[in-house]
């Protein structure tokens, strides 16, 4: 590791200039709200190869030789600003960008088109601007970032109406989902029909499909980094929406004008009101809703110190009279301190809490049971960004997480019964250090290279078993006090390189290793709130992936069209699958139900996007494969993983008819998941039972769907804005298979049939949005 350090120092030194240099640094902000802008680009016109982008807190720093420069600042959706700046000394100031004054600002022909997709080193990454997704139709008209990213190549939905997703052949638990740096363990509401992210409260979304920068770690497939709005620091604002399924309200404003602000955003569904209309008395008794609350406040102590406090709280409630009830939810909290040591060294210190819990009630009175479970993290994170010179940007930091997992506490619903059964708690420490340098070698060549070094240590108190090949316990140790069980160390090198062919095209290549120590056990076809998170243990080894990828990026027509082709090959070790008839829930020996093996995934992703103009949108196509080889399954042969999808197409189009109306459409098509169907049947104990010959040997039918949407701006003045959004989900009423089950033919007891359940056909919605 010392060698790497030395190499870093030499490289960073090599490309700095000997002449007198000065640093321009500061924050870039929105003119109207004072909200800092993430990912705004600063370019020195005289040195077009030198550029900087604002970091996650809106800060940039750029160092140039003494002289006079035209500095331009760009951000999608904002008017580009050019200023003449004389660099005779270090300059530290903030810049203001003005939002484009059009109805749907980003979709207007602009003379300032950026080609950052060509010039940036990062590959396998997509950034989503919340304003961009406003026009895209979604289920129930509830705009949802998780649904929108599933329209990008390489990112695929788990299933109908499901907020879970698969990235590049990885499983749904291999995505790191961060909300203001806090891990969100279950990102779905209503068993996956909505995501927990209320887009009113979200400012910025970045998704990395494998080659994540070294500051991220802990999951194999992707990082979804979501940042909440800071709140308007100029004036009080209220916005909201009223829809068929839910309503939203968002309040933001200054704490002290231009010094600090707050934001509170809430949402509540009332889907169960529909159930009251049902003729079925049982359905009328059902309860089904969720709510969530995002809140954030920030305050600038002085020009070098700023504090942020943000939190999320959400809950789902689902119940059927006295017989069954369940609720689950996430809570996260983040306290951050931004500190500028000087105009080149930015520091952020975070204290993060995250909690996911669920409770299930079965029955009531003397025979009922309550089961509760939770996972809780305390997380400390220190990040430094060192803007060494115009060619090097160094990031380094450390991260330490203390995990507590409560697999299940069972109590009686009868208050006189005091017996409690508690499954042993699980504890682990999760530590990491990282260093990464973004380096421009020449006008054409740049590298982003670094590593992450992690340790993961499950610890006692507790009893720890090891199991043999057929799942019988062979050994155990019991610790009665805090004691390390084992520590897994992993070294994760990451490198991305960009070679710019010309201003229209570039080639990028990347390699990255990722490690995952928290694993989700789920043996159902859709996400379930009671799916179990388990840490690496003596039996479950850290999952490790190595991904290689190469991509070609090309822009056409003065950056109006962006095209990219990316291919990847990924190997994964210590992948988990389940023994036949595995019992995952409420099983103390759950690790005895698992099998381990390797995985591989590879694919090609094509993406064509029209960024500007009255008509804009994209077409994405993915050709891919994801397979596993696990001893004990399918005669130890390679077999398709559940998430293996051969073809995946998405088409998104948004057309601005006039200043008032914007219409949009999306169409998706994908190969069905790999599933297990019976090939035979037999009779036992007086029943006809399915006979299975292999796992994942069949396919669900292909899925396709068209959604239509329209947005009408009802009123737009400086003080008040309102709009109506209309949408139809599944406009041609395709009966997509949600599940297929095999059982007796209702018409002929002597036969068996396959029954397909499909969920949504022609779901219309209307939402009224306002802002003042």
């Amino acid at each position, binding site marked *: 590791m010392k060698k790497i350090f030395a190499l870093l120092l030499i490289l960073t030194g090599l490309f700095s200039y000997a002449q007198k240099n000065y640093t321009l640094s500061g924050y870039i902000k929105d003119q109207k709200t004072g909200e800092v802008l993430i990912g705004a680009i600063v370019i020195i016109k005289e040195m077009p190869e030198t550029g900087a982008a604002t970091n996650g807190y809106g800060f940039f720093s750029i160092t140039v030789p003494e002289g006079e420069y035209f500095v331009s600042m760009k951000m999608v959706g904002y008017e580009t600003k050019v200023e003449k700046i004389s660099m005779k000394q270090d300059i530290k100031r903030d810049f203001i960008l003005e939002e484009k004054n059009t109805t749907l600002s980003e979709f207007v022909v602009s003379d300032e088109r950026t080609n950052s997709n060509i010039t940036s080193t990062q590959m396998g990454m997509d950034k989503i601007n919340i304003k961009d997704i406003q026009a895209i139709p979604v289920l129930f008209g509830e705009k949802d970032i998780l649904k929108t990213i599933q329209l990008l190549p390489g990112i695929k939905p788990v299933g109908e*109406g499901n907020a879970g997703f698969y990235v590049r052949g990885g499983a749904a638990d291999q995505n790191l989902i961060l909300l203001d740096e806090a891990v969100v363990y279950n990102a779905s509401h*209503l*068993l996956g*029909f909505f995501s927990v992210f209320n887009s009113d409260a979200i400012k910025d979304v970045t998704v990395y499909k494998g080659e994540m920068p070294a500051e991220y770690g802990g999951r194999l497939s992707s990082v979804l980094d979501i940042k909440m709005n800071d709140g308007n620091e100029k004036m009080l604002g209220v916005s909201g929406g009223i829809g068929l399924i839910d309503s939203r309200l968002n309040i933001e404003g200054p704490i002290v004008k231009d010094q600090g602000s707050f934001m509170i955003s809430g949402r509540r569904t009332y889907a169960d009101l*529909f*159930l009251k209309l049902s003729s079925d008395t049982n*359905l009328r008794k*059902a309860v*089904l809703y969720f709510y969530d609350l995002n809140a954030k406040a920030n305050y600038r102590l002085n020009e070098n110190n700023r504090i942020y406090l943000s939190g999320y709280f959400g809950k789902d409630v*689902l119940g059927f009279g006295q017989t*069954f009830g*369940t609720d689950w939810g996430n809570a996260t909290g983040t306290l951050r301190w931004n500190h500028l040591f000087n105009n080149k060294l930015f520091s952020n210190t975070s204290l993060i809490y995250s909690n996911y819990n669920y409770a*299930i009630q079965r*029955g009531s009175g*003397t025979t009922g049971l309550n*089961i509760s479970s939770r996972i809780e993290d305390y997380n400390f994170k220190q990040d430094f960004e060192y803007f060494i010179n115009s060619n090097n940007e160094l990031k380094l930091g450390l991260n330490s997480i203390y995990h507590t997992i409560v697999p299940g506490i*069972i109590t*009686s619903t009868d208050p006189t019964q005091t017996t409690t*059964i508690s499954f042993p708690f699980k504890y682990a420490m999760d530590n990491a250090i990282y260093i990464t340098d973004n380096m421009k070698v020449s006008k054409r060549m740049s590298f982003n290279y670094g590593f992450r070094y992690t340790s993961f240590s499950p610890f006692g108190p507790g009893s720890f078993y090891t199991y043999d090949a057929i799942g019988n316990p062979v050994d155990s140790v019991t610790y009665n006090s805090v004691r390390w069980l084992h520590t897994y160390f992993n070294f994760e090198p990451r490198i991305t390189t960009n070679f710019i062919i010309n201003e229209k095209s570039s080639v990028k290549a990347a390699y990255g290793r990722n490690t995952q120590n928290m694993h989700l056990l789920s*043996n159902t*076809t*859709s996400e*379930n*709130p*009671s799916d179990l998170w388990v840490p690496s243990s003596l039996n479950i080894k850290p999952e490790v992936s190595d991904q290689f990828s190469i991509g070609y990026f090309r822009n056409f027509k003065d950056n109006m069209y962006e095209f990219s082709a990316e291919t990847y090959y990924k190997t994964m070790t210590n992948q988990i699958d*389940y023994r*036949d*008839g*595995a*019992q995952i829930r409420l099983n*103390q020996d759950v690790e005895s139900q698992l099998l381990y093996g390797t995985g591989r995934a590879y694919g090609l992703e094509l993406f064509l996007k029209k960024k500007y103009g009255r008509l804009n949108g994209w077409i994405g196509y993915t050709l891919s494969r994801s397979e596993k080889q696990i001893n004990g399954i399918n005669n130890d042969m390679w077999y398709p993983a559940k998430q293996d999808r051969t073809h995946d197409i998405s088409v998104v189009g948004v057309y601005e008819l006039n200043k008032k109306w914007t219409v949009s459409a999306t169409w998706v098509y994908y190969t069905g998941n790999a*599933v*297990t169907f019976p*090939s*035979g*049947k*037999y*009779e*036992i*104990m*007086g*029943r006809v*039972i399915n*006979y*299975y*010959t292999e796992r994942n*040997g069949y396919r669900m039918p292909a899925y396709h769907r068209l959604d239509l949407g329209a947005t009408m701006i009802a009123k737009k003045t400086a003080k008040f804005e309102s709009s109506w959004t209309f949408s139809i989900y599944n406009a041609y009423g395709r009966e997509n298979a*949600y*599940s297929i*089950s095999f059982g007796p*033919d209702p018409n002929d007891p*002597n036969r*068996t049939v*396959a*029954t*397909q*359940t499909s*969920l*949504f*056909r022609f779901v219309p919605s209307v939402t009224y949005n306002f802002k003042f």
Partner: protein
Amino acid sequence: MKPMKKINGNGIIMLIGMVTMIFGGCQKIVNINLNDSNPRMVVEASISDQMQVDTVKLSMSVNYNQSNTFPAVSGAKVTISDNAGLVDTLTEIIPGNYITPLMQGVPGRTYTLRIVANGKTYTSSSAMPQPVPIDSLTLVVSYGRGGLRVRPQVTFSDPKGIVNYYRFAEAINDSMLTNLTVVSDEYKDGMVLTQELSARKNDGTSIFSGDSIRVDLQSIDYGAYTYFRTFNTITRGGGQNASPANPISNIDNYALGYFSAYSVRSKYLVVP
């Protein structure tokens, strides 16, 4: 503490029901092109500690799209032996049904089933646990959908210090119910346990006044328990189970089915 109930994907299944109802979803029979499968031997075999006829039933699996006619396996040589040196050869009385009129099981012994059929040999062994008596069989009355509902409930004392597995068999008017309930004493060792059983007959009708109810408490071994437990997890998952498979059999040579040596104690009542 009441015996643990299975918590399965019911939440999802109920939610899906609600969603399909509200948003125009639907269920329909579809034609799926399924592969042919090699026929496999299916064994249903048990021996009890009672003076009763124990049967071994042999049949073959068929392709999924065929009708529910399962070929009986005739002419097999079936023996059950115990670890005390007793060997009994079973007689085929109707095609595929082999009986042992002689043998009465002894708790504590281990039984071996051996089948030679169509040139293949299948074996299994099962240990017969000590019987556990039922303390009481009562009726629990509740008001549910469709009015009054009567559920039988058994109470028994789990022997402390040993691992026990139980299967409950319920007969209403001498007709055995096809549903299957098994529990283990995990987390409940040595406690007084109660178990509610089905309130419905095989034809779906409720228990009624005058019906006779018999409940058998079978003490079974781990192999048989694993078969019945995985049988339930696999058959109850609906379309939700991501990796459905065959229940884990305790018979070798790729046979489907089970062999259970069990001891049993019963209680009987007539619904007043």
